[in-house]
């Protein structure tokens, strides 16, 4: 036991040195433990029972769910929508109850349900298929057959109202907090429009589906984990231990729960982040890729007997996002809690000990953690570990303290607290033994922490300035995660209204709402103007030494930067920064223009879901398997090739941050951004190792690197943009690029991008093309609908365009090139024209058809005809002379001398004084400079040959119109 504890502490320290991640491992464990204070529910059959002889089961009309110690009883009848306990407390599963039945022995109470999915339950990489931003309370009708639709009634939490929204109507205002909306269905592959027939209320009279129970009726009453096929999400049906334990605490919570929803909410006060989409994704992945030993370990971990131990590192990372919320709570608690609470805190701290113990017993968890921390430790960190462990020790308890307060939260608010109940489980007993030591230790640590906390606080202040790109980068990776969590926070905020601590909760949710808009990291967000009240809160927060929970995540990153050798030779100068900050868009049109700029990276790329999916799967599988491979992506310019690959990498990096897939490195080179194909080696090497070398040397080094097993077993993903530029006579650059992935253990994934579909056939010699393989993908030019969608999604509710105007642009561009860049540029130009046409910028209305037409004209119309019309008289005459001479000769080419004869004649016809040869040559040269004529070298003088660069018809048309 003690030994185990020691191991754990060590792990903790190592992790801690790693920074924020480990801190949250600690905290997460505790949070999990404390918040899972279960309410004991009593389930009773109600109504007339009817027997189904064939299946040896009995059906029932309704089910009564009562909460122990409360009068209120919820009745659930088939046809109602119910919430089912899952491993996310805040977002329980949603389903529609179809049938209630029990087996002969009345031991098991079962229910037949139709599942609904929240978007967060959809695998992350498929979320894009939705193609729009989901409503926070949107659920999807689950059509997949893989899920078991039979559940244990004991996992039913209560009822919920579900409303079907027809496909073309918008979601109603989120006024009612406990109403969920269903619009689409999900069949594990795609989102479809939901057939309204499916949603019609089918009351109990529906003929019960003849579904055989998954488990024989005689199965043990304990733990029937109802699995949902591909999800493999262990629905923790209350096993006896949990139930017993939950029951022990239920008294303390009973008063809190104002109703059935209240019970639900009470459980999910602050754990917004626990529900992160990525977590679900990870569980899914675990299920699907359970073959690898490492993954299996995780699986055990997640299926552990106690829900408190379900957490994994992914969750921990997610938790990080929630620091804002938690720290707020800590503060509030600190304010409210008196000394008398310290004993309670001590008590509440203790379950963590048991939490430590149990996974150790299982063997999987700590070992896994150790390996993680070792993997991620940088060499320098290892060296310094001993020396710095004191410091770390000092930091750890503080994090504990935070969590302690937080964990104490429900206990504080619960009025009827009976310590006796706590001893119900054996584990608790053990805990009590330790109790004596814990509080003192906590106090000690709290004392030691005061000073560091101040220092850290100061440091944080300095880091608040946005001029610290180093500190920012690791955060930006988690952007998507932040988005998800912040969205959920918002949702949770709505649910939390009748919470006792709602005022406190509101306070801490304010910044998170801002998060949604800015989606930037918290620092910069905090920089933004906040209300006076907010600043006060922030100060208070600082006093409450909340800061350490955040700072450790930054300190290592700061340390890491100087470690990269920064000799002045490598120092890259940057463009000097401006004295006056760039002005932000002022009105709607400016806003629209900023959004329509090609450079503004959208949160997700619409219309490339399938391609995204394919590339994602390709890279992901290679990264997971630790193998290498090549992929060739082709498509005309402006079809989103590079953007899609970047998006894939972003998602994968996010996944890898969440530890769902192994770490990998991403390197990007661009054939156009180098002066010579062999520079590719230099750039790859530099990005891989930071070394500088000549092309030949770099090639040799890379050869060595990829011939041997990859260091740290890390996969390298290499993106080669504009592949055709890497062509050399011997094609050795291409050959090497495609040969390295085939090496054993090289772990190199090469994604290549070029414009032409048949590049491998056209320019590659056989041995190169063969190595490239047949994994190819071609991006089709966008269709007009897609272009329209792109514009719409970019504008994102900024109403700047008329619908017709948008359609015109997209149709026109789709007909010509399908280039999204072009489309966006035209839209931008149209907004400018719209702005100019208005008398005052603020009065400018929507962009109309006429503006778009003008922009299209500007960009697409050929300028030749205008140029001819604007040419001088002699130039026009010369063009006519050229055509006359061509007609005379019957050729499309003539010498200047010949044309000049015609020109003189025309001059006489027109009654103009004939011009001299020199003048004629000057006229001819001017036309040649504009490229209306194509000329030979001018040293040939009168003998130079003349051709038209415009069609004769165009010239005649232009000149004729000129006459009129």
């Amino acid at each position: 036991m003690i030994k185990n504890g020691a191991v754990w502490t060590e792990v903790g320290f190592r992790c801690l040195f790693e920074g924020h991640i480990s801190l949250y491992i600690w905290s997460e464990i505790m949070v999990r433990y404390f918040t899972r204070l279960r309410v004991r529910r009593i389930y009773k059959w109600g109504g007339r029972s009817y027997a189904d002889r064939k299946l040896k089961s009995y059906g029932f009309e309704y089910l009564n769910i009562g909460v122990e110690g409360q009068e209120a009883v919820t009745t659930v009848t088939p046809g109602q929508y119910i919430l089912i306990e899952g491993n996310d407390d805040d977002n329980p599963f949603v389903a529609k109850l179809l049938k209630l039945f029990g087996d002969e022995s009345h031991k098991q109470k079962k229910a037949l349900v139709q599942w609904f999915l929240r978007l967060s339950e959809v695998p992350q990489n498929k979320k894009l298929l939705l193609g729009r931003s989901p409503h926070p309370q949107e659920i999807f009708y689950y059509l997949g057959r893989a899920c078991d639709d039979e559940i244990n009634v004991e996992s039913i939490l209560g009822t919920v109202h579900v409303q079907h929204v027809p496909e073309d109507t918008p979601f109603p205002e989120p006024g009612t907090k406990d109403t969920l909306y269903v619009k689409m269905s999900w069949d594990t592959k795609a989102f479809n429009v939901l057939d309204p027939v499916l949603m019609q209320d089918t009351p109990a009279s529906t003929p019960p589906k003849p579904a055989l129970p998954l488990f024989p009726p005689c199965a043990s009453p304990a733990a029937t984990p109802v699995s949902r096929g591909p999800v493999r999400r262990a629905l923790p049906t209350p096993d006896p231990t949990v139930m017993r334990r939950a029951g022990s605490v239920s008294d303390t919570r009973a008063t809190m729960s104002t109703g059935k929803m209240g019970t639900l909410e009470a459980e999910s006060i602050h754990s917004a982040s626990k529900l992160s989409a990525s977590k679900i994704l990870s569980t899914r992945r675990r299920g699907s890729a359970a073959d690898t030993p490492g993954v299996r370990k995780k699986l055990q971990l997640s299926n552990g007997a106690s829900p408190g131990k379900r957490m994994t590192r992914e969750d921990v990372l997610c938790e990080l996002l929630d620091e804002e919320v938690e720290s707020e709570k800590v503060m509030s608690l600190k304010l409210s809690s008196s000394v008398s609470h310290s004993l309670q805190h001590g008590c509440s701290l203790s379950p963590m000990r048991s939490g430590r113990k149990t996974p150790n017993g299982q063997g999987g968890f700590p070992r896994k953690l150790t390996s993680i921390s070792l993997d991620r430790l940088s060499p320098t960190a290892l060296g310094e570990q001993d020396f710095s462990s004191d410091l770390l020790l000092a930091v750890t308890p503080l994090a504990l303290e935070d969590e302690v307060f937080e964990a104490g939260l429900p206990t504080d608010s619960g009025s009827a607290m009976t310590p006796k109940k706590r001893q119900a489980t054996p584990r608790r007993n053990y805990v009590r033994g330790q109790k004596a030591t814990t509080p003192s230790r906590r106090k000690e640590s709290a004392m030691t922490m005061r000073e560091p906390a101040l220092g850290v606080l100061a440091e944080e202040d300095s880091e608040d300035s946005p001029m610290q790109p180093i500190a920012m980068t690791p955060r930006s990776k988690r952007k998507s995660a932040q988005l998800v969590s912040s969205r959920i926070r918002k949702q949770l905020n709505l649910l939390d209204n009748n919470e006792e601590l709602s005022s406190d909760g509101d306070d801490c949710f304010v910044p998170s709402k801002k998060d949604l808009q800015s989606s930037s990291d918290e620092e910069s967000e905090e920089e933004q103007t906040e209300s006076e009240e907010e600043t006060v809160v922030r100060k208070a927060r600082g006093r409450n030494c909340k800061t350490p929970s955040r700072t450790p995540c930054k300190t290592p990153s700061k340390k890491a930067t100087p470690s990269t050798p920064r000799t002045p030779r490598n120092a890259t100068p940057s463009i000097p920064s401006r004295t006056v900050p760039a002005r932000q868009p002022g009105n709607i049109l400016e806003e629209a223009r900023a959004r329509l700029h090609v450079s503004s990276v959208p949160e997700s790329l619409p219309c490339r879901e399938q391609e995204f999916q394919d590339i994602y799967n390709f890279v992901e599988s290679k990264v997971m398997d630790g193998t290498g491979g090549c992929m060739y992506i082709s498509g005309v310019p402006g079809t989103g090739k590079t953007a899609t690959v970047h998006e894939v990498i972003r998602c994968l990096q996010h996944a890898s941050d969440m530890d769902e897939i192994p770490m990998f490195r991403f390197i990007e080179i661009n054939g156009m951004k180098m002066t010579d194909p062999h520079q590719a080696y230099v750039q790859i090497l530099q990005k891989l190792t930071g070394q500088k070398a000549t092309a030949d040397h770099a090639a040799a080094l890379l050869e060595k690197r990829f011939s041997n097993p990859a260091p740290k077993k890390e996969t390298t993903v290499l993106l080669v943009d504009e592949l055709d530029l890497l062509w050399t006579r011997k094609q050795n650059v291409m050959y090497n690029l495609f040969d390295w992935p085939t090496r054993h253990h090289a772990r190199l994934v090469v994604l290549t991008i070029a414009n032409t579909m048949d590049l491998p056939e056209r320019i590659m010699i056989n041995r190169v093309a063969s190595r490239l393989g047949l994994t190819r993908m071609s991006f089709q030019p966008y269709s007009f609908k897609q272009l329209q969608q792109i514009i719409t999604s970019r504008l994102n509710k900024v109403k700047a365009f008329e619908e017709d105007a948008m359609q015109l642009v997209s149709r026109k561009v789709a007909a010509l090139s399908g280039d999204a860049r072009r489309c966006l540029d035209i839209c931008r130009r149209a907004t400018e024209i719209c702005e100019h046409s208005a008398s005052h910028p603020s009065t400018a209305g929507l962009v109309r058809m006429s503006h778009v037409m003008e922009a299209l004209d500007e960009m697409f119309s050929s300028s030749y005809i205008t140029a001819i019309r604007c040419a001088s008289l002699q130039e026009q005459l010369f063009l006519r002379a050229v055509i006359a001479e061509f007609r005379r000769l019957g050729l499309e080419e003539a010498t200047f001398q010949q044309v000049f004869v015609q020109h003189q004649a025309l001059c006489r016809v027109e009654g103009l004084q004939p011009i001299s040869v020199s003048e004629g040559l000057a006229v001819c040269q001017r036309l040649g400079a504009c490229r209306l004529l194509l000329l030979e070298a001018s040293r040939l003088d009168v003998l130079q040959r003349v051709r038209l660069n415009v069609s004769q018809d165009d010239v005649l048309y232009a000149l004729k119109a000129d006459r009129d």
Partner: protein
Amino acid sequence: MSKRKVKETHMPVGECISQVQMILRERFCHRRLPEKPVGMESQHKHLLELLRRTAVHGESNSVLIVGPRGSGKTMLLNCVLRELLEVKDVNKNVLPVHLNGLLQTDDRIALKEITRQLNLENVVGDKVFGSFAENLAFLLEALKKGDRSSSRPVLFILDEFDLFAHHKNQTLLYNLLDVSQSAQAPIAVIGLTCRLDVLELLEKRVKSRFSHRQIHLLSSLSFIQYLDNVRSQLSLPQDFPDTKFYDEWNESIKTLCEDQPVVDVLQRHYNSSKDFRSLHLLLMLALSRVSASKPAIKPTDLLEASRVCMVDSKANILHGLSILELCLIIAMKHLNDIYEGEPFNFQMVHNEFKKFLQRKSHSIHNFDKPVVIKAFEHLQQLELIKSMDSSTAKIQKEYQLMKLMLDHSQIMEALQKYPQCPTDVKQWAMSAFG
């Protein structure tokens, strides 16, 4: 003011004239930008707005200014830049980089020039700029590190834009346009070119990255406006020190522009080309004839200047030829008539010349063949005739195929004006067949 007026009325005429010449020459040689570009208001507004957005909002843009030579592209851009830099906020916030396709003939030189103009060199200290590749990586890194809100916008002005399109792989253009389409340091790429088909020169991936904004400067100036412009170009500015001279001069200019021969001359110029550069040349020539003794531009000055401008360059050369050389030219003309422009060699010309001597000539003596060859070579040196085959070494001089670089009208005109041209030579030239 009035005091100064009185005093300066007595400024000597010579001084006034030198003042006038200074002011007008500055104008004609494009040393000073006009107050406001004429006839391109909408283009001016468009470009100004665009660059202002880059400077103020940090929005990256790319634009091409297309127009024939002398249509005022550079003038427009300089006007816009001047106006832009007058804004206080903008002044210290933009970094203009001027490149010219005729100077930066390849990307290596262009990159060096960019780093020099951006003062990036200094940051590296004593580092001697390494290879082209390093240079490119260096610049791209610098641009990549910037972002929209914090770094200064860079205005890349690419004069003779079409020549940059001929650089290898169009690396520079690709990278600049790529930066302008991605979230890096804000830049504006402004290309100036006279080629209407410039977009066809761009590779498709480069083209896709270009925003397809083109500002066309195609003057649709009418002759009346042209005349107005001439008047305003010649008129003195309000703040001319000597008011009396100022009034006299402007009055004389007004009458000048109403004079019929002058209007005819200007009409002829206008017909030939609408651009102001050729007009400025004409006015400059006229201006140079103004002196203290003749303190105004007279119509004859302008006519003379126009004659100088319009004169055929070859006709002048023909006036300086000897009779023998002229005879050879006439022989060649006849050969051209007979063989319909087919090339000829010395022997043929010599035969034709001998025929003339035998039959019609009275005044011209027989020349030895070496003398005739010498005259023929002289013509070749003057590039009045040009050898047709490239390999001159193999064939004997006499048999090399040649072509006449003159038009018939040029020959006849030259003969008319040739001093003391023998009549038999003239008649020979006029006759249909030699």
